[in-house]
């Protein structure tokens, strides 16, 4: 099962390598990863997605919690949550395809952020499966380049991950 683990950790050199190292060292997989400082510059928020059954995820979260720099963490998939990913995608846009691609962008509520006579650069946000669906909709042959930010997530309602 796919899980989104969100980690609040010390914004210190070496902290990220410990999280990443833990995954490779214990044979866990990281599917996506995004990390940036929070409003408190001493803390970073790291969101990663991984796959595993309950037992495996329990082990992962226990080991992450043991890392000295990890302050708090939550498995967002345990409750209602919002997840978003940003994608920048460059696609071929010539002839009849120009209008077709534009229509797909509108349907998916994306934005064309750069244009040349043959290429559109599109920005799209949403859950990961929506981004996958967009690539499917325009047809992979059209795609020149894809950049995805990895998942960011936050719990719904009053629940917060903070100090």
């Amino acid at each position, binding site marked *: 099962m796919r899980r989104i683990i969100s980690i609040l950790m010390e914004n210190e050199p*070496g902290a990220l390598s410990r999280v990443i190292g833990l995954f490779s*060292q214990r044979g866990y997989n990281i599917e996506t990863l995004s990390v940036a400082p929070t409003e408190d510059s001493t803390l970073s928020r790291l969101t990663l997605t991984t796959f595993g059954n309950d037992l495996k995820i329990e082990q992962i979260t226990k080991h992450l919690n043991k890392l*000295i720099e990890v*302050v708090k963490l939550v498995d967002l998939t345990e409750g209602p949550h919002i997840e978003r990913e940003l994608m920048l995608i460059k696609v071929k846009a010539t002839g009849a395809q120009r209008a077709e691609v534009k229509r797909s962008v509108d349907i998916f509520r994306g934005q064309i952020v750069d244009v040349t006579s043959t290429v559109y650069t599109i920005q799209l946000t949403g859950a990961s499966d929506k981004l996958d669906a967009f690539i499917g909709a325009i047809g992979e042959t059209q795609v020149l380049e894809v950049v995805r930010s990895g998942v960011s997530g936050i719990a719904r309602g009053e629940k917060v991950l903070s100090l």
Partner: protein
Amino acid sequence: MEMLSGAEMVVRALQDEGVEYIFGYPGGSVLHIYDALFQQDSVSHILVRHEQAATHAADGYARATGKPGVVMVTSGPGATNAITGLATAFMDSIPMVVLSGQVRSDWIGDDAFQETDMIGVSRPVVKHSFMVRDAKDIPEIMKKAFYIATTGRPGPVLVDIPKDQTAPNVKNPYEYPKKVKMRSYSPVSRGHSGQIRKALDELMKAKRPVIYAGGGVVQGEGSELLTQLAHRLNFPVTNTLMGLGGFPGTDRQNVGMLGMHGTYEANMTMHSSDVILAVGARLDDRVTNNVKKFCPGAKIIHIDIDPATISKNIMAHIPIVGPVQQVLEEMLAALDEHGGEPDRKALERWWEEIDGWRKVHGMRYETNEDGPMKPQQVVQALYKATKGDAYVTSDVGQHQMFAAQYYQYDKPRRWINSGGLGTMGFGLPAAMGVQFAFPEATVACVTGEGSIQMNIQELSTCLQYGLPVKVININNQALGMVRQWQDMQYGGRHSQSYMESLPDFVKLAEAYGHVGMKITRIEDLDGAMEEAFALKDRLVFMDIYVDPTEHVYPMQIADGSMRDMWLSKTERT
């Protein structure tokens, strides 16, 4: 406030931590610190002959005393040589602080002379690590390093110190912090009372209980309480390799070590139990055998300070996360409160069954009147000569198992071995650390001709500091455990497991300034042991030739349950 250089701060912090010994080896990046060490005498520096030995010596010191072991190495090769020792301590949860020199800050990343990314290289084998980026931070980093190493589940902590941060001409105010405050690190200090009561209820109902005590009982100072609890309940106790001495070896309730080379009765007791109280143990693969067949009828109560250990390999029915000592204390108090008794009738039947198992194998082995000595006889002779009261360190292999099986440890911290990582070359330097901690104690290093050669250069250190360690070299002219597996699983093809061209260990010991003895006949063994241990102020290297064909038994059959064992070369369960 006092103004000190970074180097002086490092040394002052060691003093403020009450460090007696630091094991190390100098080099370019740590010269400022060595100069500061030279100008004081409350911290004694022990000069080893190889950095790996420094880590094992500090580790042995830590295991024998419970205090953190301290190491100093230089950058590059000095640091990488310390990796095996860090990994050894990490696997066995030993508190250690390793200070490694680093090239000056502005050279980091430039492939400078003797530069290694020690933080990166050591990352998977340390509890935590620090790099000093500003000399002003040294007091706080040192305080945190010792705090993290010694609290919670203990482990090694590395402090990497670039040379410029220790420069003698840059002074900063020094004040050693009294307390550590870390928002991201707060080791658990109490087990959950509800869980403890639930566990006790389960124990009172048990008809076939067993206490399975690991290294956490020794490290967590829980031996006395565990012994009380076991006696109050009249439950059988089995110790892991790391837990030997955590419950007295000669106690009637002790069924011996469990696991791959555990006693028949310990493994049978485990397999047939209905409740297992696992204390400070990690249910690792050397204990469980095939996890799917592990103790099918047992409810598992698991006490450990590390939540990640619980339900890692075997699901615990009643997990209790907390320090072994505090949890056992509360469990004993709850037992008083409870006022009830365990099921005496059922226990009586249980003990009858266990006593029956005790008669099946009884750790017997065949001896041959005219043939070569058996390694088991050597350990038994050692037990006799030291009256069971020595500190015994060991290396890794058959001799380690024999030393675990045939020497009865009645006290914690007496049996010192690399259980988790299985590091050959651990024994002699570990014995040095123990001897420094207890100069008057009898310290024996049980080793083999393979392992001893992995750190034999330390005989020189032993001479320098007058360490009267007794090296019991159980010499079977083969890498015995490898050979045993090759006998059992590879059709007797002894691929690279024999030792040709062994040195003359007697001459070697003498060349290092020690006493050497060669023993080849059983009738000389007891006399030689007595003679060796009578030489109180000398290191004696006893090179004892034994039967190269001997195997360690019992031995669990791979992929079986705990009760599936070879009992000799021809008998199995």
